[in-house]
Structure formats: structure tokens, C-alpha cells
């Protein structure tokens, strides 16, 4: 009995390993930062990129198909440049300049042709600083309202 079970377990492991290896090989995509792509001369048939939507122009065509054009940059190194992205699909909720996104697609001739685009939930961001926010707000509004000081 034990031999038969051992064989069963081995079959599972081998079969499973084969399936996983095959599926991995055919689907794996390198994960890259936009700055890696800016400097790259190669094309990548499959790539996943995580980055921040840059402040430059975002265009959204809706006819005849929904196509979103934007640029993506390293959140930590925006000075290294940004990569243009073309995404054929509905603009995801919460998509905006300055938001972090993850996209899957192909990198061809300097542009990412995205097939999958996900916006990260804004609540994950660096905790906003109430002091800074209110100082900015009162600078623009010129309000002289007194604010209660904390205990």
C-alpha cells in the first residue's frame, strides 16, 4: 500500500512540477521599473511595470474604442524620465496623474502597449500631513480663521 501511495505522491509532484514549469515559461514576464525601460534599446514581448502616472498629458479616447494614453515614471526617481503608455481599455476607477499603477503589456519601440492596467488604492499612500495640507489650503484661500490648537 505504501509503495502505491508513494508512487501517487511522486506522480502528483512530477505532474504538478511539469504543469507549473510549462505555465511559468510560457507566461513569465519580467517586472521592470519605468527607468529601466527608458534606458533600454530592446523590445520586451511581455513585461510588467509598476510606476507612477506622470503629470504630463493624459489623453483618453473613447471612440471608436477606449484608448488611454499616458506616461509612467519611477515614483522614487522621476528625474530619470518617463515612458509613454498606450492602454486599450476602459480607464480604471481612481486613475489619475500622480497615482501608482501596475500594468502588463509589451514594450515595443519605446512605448508600452498595455493589455492590463490596475490603479492602486489611494489609501495605501504615504499618510498625508494635515499640517501641510491645511497650511497650503489657507495660503491659497487667504483665510484668517483661527484653528484650535491640539491638547
Amino acid at each position, binding site marked *: 500500500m505504501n509503495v502505491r501511495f508513494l508512487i501517487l505522491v511522486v506522480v502528483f509532484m512530477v505532474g504538478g512540477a511539469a504543469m507549473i514549469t510549462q505555465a511559468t515559461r510560457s507566461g513569465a514576464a*519580467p517586472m521592470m521599473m519605468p527607468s529601466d525601460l527608458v534606458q533600454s534599446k530592446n523590445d520586451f514581448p511581455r513585461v510588467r511595470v509598476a510606476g507612477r502616472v506622470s503629470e504630463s498629458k493624459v489623453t483618453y479616447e473613447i471612440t471608436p474604442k477606449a484608448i488611454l494614453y499616458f506616461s509612467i515614471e519611477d515614483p522614487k526617481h522621476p528625474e530619470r524620465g518617463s515612458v509613454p503608455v498606450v492602454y486599450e481599455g476602459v480607464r480604471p476607477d481612481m486613475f489619475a496623474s500622480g497615482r501608482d499603477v*501596475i500594468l502588463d503589456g509589451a514594450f515595443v519601440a519605446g512605448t508600452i502597449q498595455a493589455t492590463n492596467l490596475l490603479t492602486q488604492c489611494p489609501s495605501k499612500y504615504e499618510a498625508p500631513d494635515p499640517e501641510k495640507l491645511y497650511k497650503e489650503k489657507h495660503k491659497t484661500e487667504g483665510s484668517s480663521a483661527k484653528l484650535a490648537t491640539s491638547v
Partner: protein
Amino acid sequence: MNNFGHIALAGAWLAALVGVFLGLYSTSKAASEKSGLLTRLVEGASRATIVVFIGIGSATAALIYGFLTNDYTNQYVWQFSNRDMAALYKVTALWGGMDGSMLLWCFMLALVSAVVALTTTAGTRLFGGTLAVANSSSLFFITVVLFLTNPFRAVRASFIPPDGNGLNPLLQNPLMAIHPPMLYAGFTTFSVPFAFCIGALLSNQLDNIWLTLTRRWTLIAWLFLTVGIILGGGWAYVELGWGGFWAWDPVENASFLPWLVGTAYLHSVMVQQRKGMLKTWNVALVALTYGLTVFGTFLTRSGIVQSVHAFASTDVGWVFLVYLGFIFCITAAFLFIRRRELQATARIESFVSRESGFVLNNLIFLSITFATAWGVMFPVFSEWLTGTKQTVGVPFYNAVNVPLFLLLLGLMVVGPMMGWRKSSIQSVGRQLLAPLISALAIGALLIWSGVTSFYALTAYCFAWLIVVSVMLELHRGARALSPSAVAAGYPLVLKRHRERYAGHLVHIGVAVVAVGITASMAHKMEREVTLKPGETVEIGRYRLSLNTIDVEQLKNFERYFAKLDVIEAKTGLKIESLKPELRHYFKNNETTTEVALRTSLRDDLYTVLVGVEDGGKAASFKIYVNPLQIWLWIGGVIMALGTLIIVLTPKNSPVRVRHTV
């Protein structure tokens, strides 16, 4: 409020520490020799567990109170709420961010531990050991909250802000309000069987008593987790507008992994209770389930994998890894130390037997778990091994997991047909014959009506087989009990074998879920179109005509509504109107869409307003038809119902199977 919260957390932390020590001491030899000491130690540990709950409960209540009273002296309250929010969402904002959600986890963990302390009627070393482990879990999580992710921090300003930052509108949705607490309830409840298991190993009471005591807990945990996961899928479907419900996102997978192993565990313990076998398996499975719940929360908070769900990447990750390592070492150590007591009291005699079916079940579930974990961790592993970070996407998971799940569906058909100890292929064949013929007929019918995908056909046929074989078994049982009036036999059978048929009901629920998933994915229809008012588009059995485009201006955003008339293409009759909505927020120039959905038993018509142009003269849509989508949710309800029936069956009821304790 901040000071109170700190004190309450610190008190809970100390109580947990006391609980661990008293519990551990109670399992020692010294305690067992003086019975008075044992009772007092266990009672002390029990009281400490309750104090932990009081501490965490007060802290949680204080934070909720802070939300409800708009207390912006607290950074967390300020960050995740504002004055205008509905009260419900002020409460749910508790788990809107990392710190509060960790506190919620602590709360639920303390709650289940306290209930265990209050309801377990055993002043024994097993109980003491269990309390030690339960409190050690609480101790870990309270440490994380108290020292690393403390929600009771003062607001980062020199003044009290007049209003809060507000909760992300995507989270202000009723489904999002129940989904995290349900999931956390599932995760934390799985700590109970784990605590009893390690308690049993500690106190060397390795008969089946710990299984009997934890059976209901395990089912409750599984119920919460199953409902939580399905609710998450439901929320994604209704809110996110991509027409789907599961994306194999790392955080989704993080909740799925403990579910998979938990389901295997839930089944595997039946073998131990009946036959005294698979004891080592079960220790490993329950430890793995609990470990995966910790791993899941680690994934979500550490930032090691990219996910849209993940909280901000912080430094808490390594603490979880240390705890996971600790759990692993303790479990492995005990598996070795107690190996003789964990030896099976019987052996598996035949390949074709219920026992071997359960072993196969464990193997399949573990394979799916491994494959999914592989996909999740692949970026990390590939970077370690090759230097470049690689990821795998949805095609990977589907390629590996779909065949495995189909295998599981097949096992759900033949498993119950196999007898304990020794069955025969002939016996299974006899039970399988009629259902199989009907399944082949169904398959032929499906092929004739255009279904060509092998996987879809297999899924449908297996689902059919699951349902039919249960019905057949019910019928045979009814005929045996009441040969002259079979109809009277049905309630008799169900009453006598209530648990077995409740289990069958859960399996039927799974079959229905499988049909819903298969149909809505394999036969999905999709169309993108721009329409002017009066123009129509056809999709599936529907014709949609754009009636009007309206816009409404509000303070923070403007809303576009498109009214679509839904007509049944064949008859030309109008069914209803759908109004998908697009909201444009002025502040960040961002948009959200509100899906307009028509659900029916046959299919879902799912419409998304993609954009409005020419100042309202034309609108673009993305439209899906998802066949049989509702059956996924219906199947989930059936699964929950079946589980509830088992949970609510009273312990002393004669219908319960007599376990060999």
C-alpha cells in the same frame, strides 16, 4: 482617546503574556502532579484570556468612538474619515487603513480566544496548553499593533484639523463594509483549531479529543472565510467595472491559500475521527492553515509583492516572517517529539477506499496551494535566483489550477461512492453507471449547442454528476427506509443522516459555483461601442438602445448618466432601462464608474459608461453578457447554508456520527 488606547493595548499585552506563562506552566509535569495547582493555573490562564479581550475590546471601542465623534486629535481617524461621511462608513473606516485593520484582527483573535476560554469545559492540561497558544497568537499581534502599527497616534499637526481627510469613495460600499471583517473572522477563527492542536501536542493528549472539541470551530472558520472570499469577488464584480470577479491578485490569493488548506484539513480530520489515521497530516494541515493566515497578512502589509490591495509597504514584514518561522519550528519539533503518539492506529488497506480518497483530496488541495503560492512568490524567488524580478499572470494560474480543480470536482463525484476500508472499482462503477450515462448525454447536448471547450464541458459534466449522484443516493436511501412509499422516505433519510446530506449540500453548492464560474468565463460576450441617442447595439439576446445622456453637477464632482433601454432582440419587447454612470471628480481629475447591471437566472447584462463626448451628444460603452453569473452567488449561498446546518446541529443529537474519541 489616544492615551486610553495605549493603556488598553498595553494592559491586553501584559494579560496575554500572563496567559502564555500560566498556560505553559499548566502543561508541565509539576502542575500535573498537584491537581489543585493545575486547576488554578488553567483558571488563571482563562481569566487572562478574558482580560485580553476586555483590553482589546475597549481599545477598539475607543477608536470607533473616535470615528463617530470626529475626533481629529487622532491621526488615523483624521486620515480615514471626514464629517460628512455616513455613520456606517465611519465605523467601517476602522479597517480602512493598516493600523486599524491590525487592531480589528487583534479584536477578533481576542474574541474567539475569550469564547474558547468561556465555553470549553475542561480544566485539563489540554485546555491549559490551548490557552497558552491562543494567548501567544494574541501576544504576537498585539505586539505588532502596540509597537509597530499603532492607531492611537496623535495627529501630525500643531492644531486640531477642522475636518478629516476622508475615506476613499471606492471603499464606501456596503460589500466593502462586510468583506474584510468576514475574512478576518475566518482567519482568526482558524487560530482555534491550531491552538488546540499545539495544546494537544504540548500536553501529550493526542487522542481525538482535540478534534472533537474543534470541529465546530473549524466549520465556523471555514464558513466565514468562504463567505468573505465570495463577498470579495462580488464586490469586485459590482464595483470595479471590468466584468470579472477574480484576478489572481496576490492579496486575493493570500486569502485563498488558507482556504484551500483549511478545506483539505476539514475533510482530512474525518479520517482521523473515524479511523485514527492521518494524524501527522492533520497536525501539518492545521498548522499550515494557521501559518498561511499569518502569511497572508504579511503579504498584504510588507510590500514584497505588488498588488492593488496591498497597504503601504512598511517595515512590519520581517516581524511576521520571524513569527512564521517560529510556528514552523514549533510544529516541526512537536511532529518529531510526538511521532510515536501520532502514529496511525490503522493502515489504509485499499487504493479504492474513502480513506485513500481523502488522501488524494489532500494532495490535490496542496497542489493547488503550492501552485498558487508559487505564482504569488515568483517575483521574489526569481529575483533571488536570477537577479531579475519576473511575474506570472492570470494565464499561469488558469493553466495550472483549472485542471486541478476539475480533478477535485471528479473526486467529489467518486469519493462519496467509495466505502471505508475497502471498496471496489465495481462497486463504484455500479453507482456511477446511471449518472455517467446522463452526464454523457448532457455533454452531447452541450456540444450540439455549441460548447466546444474541453475544460468547460468537463466542468459542466462533473457538476451534473455531483448533483445527480447525491440525488440518486438520497433516492436509494429513501427506498430502503420506506420501500412502499418512497416519497415519505426522503425526509426520513435527511433527518437520520442530516450531517452527511448537509455535507452533500455544500458539495452541490460547489458544483453550482463551478457552473457559474465556467459559464460566465467561457461564454462571456463583450462589446465596445459608441452610440448617439436613438442608436442601438446588439449583444447576445439583447438589443440596447441609447435613450438619453444626462449630466448633473454637484459640489465635488459631476455625474453623467446614460439611459439605455434593454430590449429582448427576439421579441422586440422592452425589458428594462439601465443607467450606467460616470463620475468625474474635480479635485484630482479622476473618474469612477458605476456599473449598471441586469441580473437574471440566464445571464447578467453588465454595462459600463466609458465616456461622454461632444458635450453629451454621444456616449461610449463597454457591455458584457455573462451567462449564468448569478449561479456563482447562489452556489455560495448553498455552500454557506449546508455549512450552517452542520454547525447548528446540536452536539448531543443522535444524528451525529459517533466518533471514536
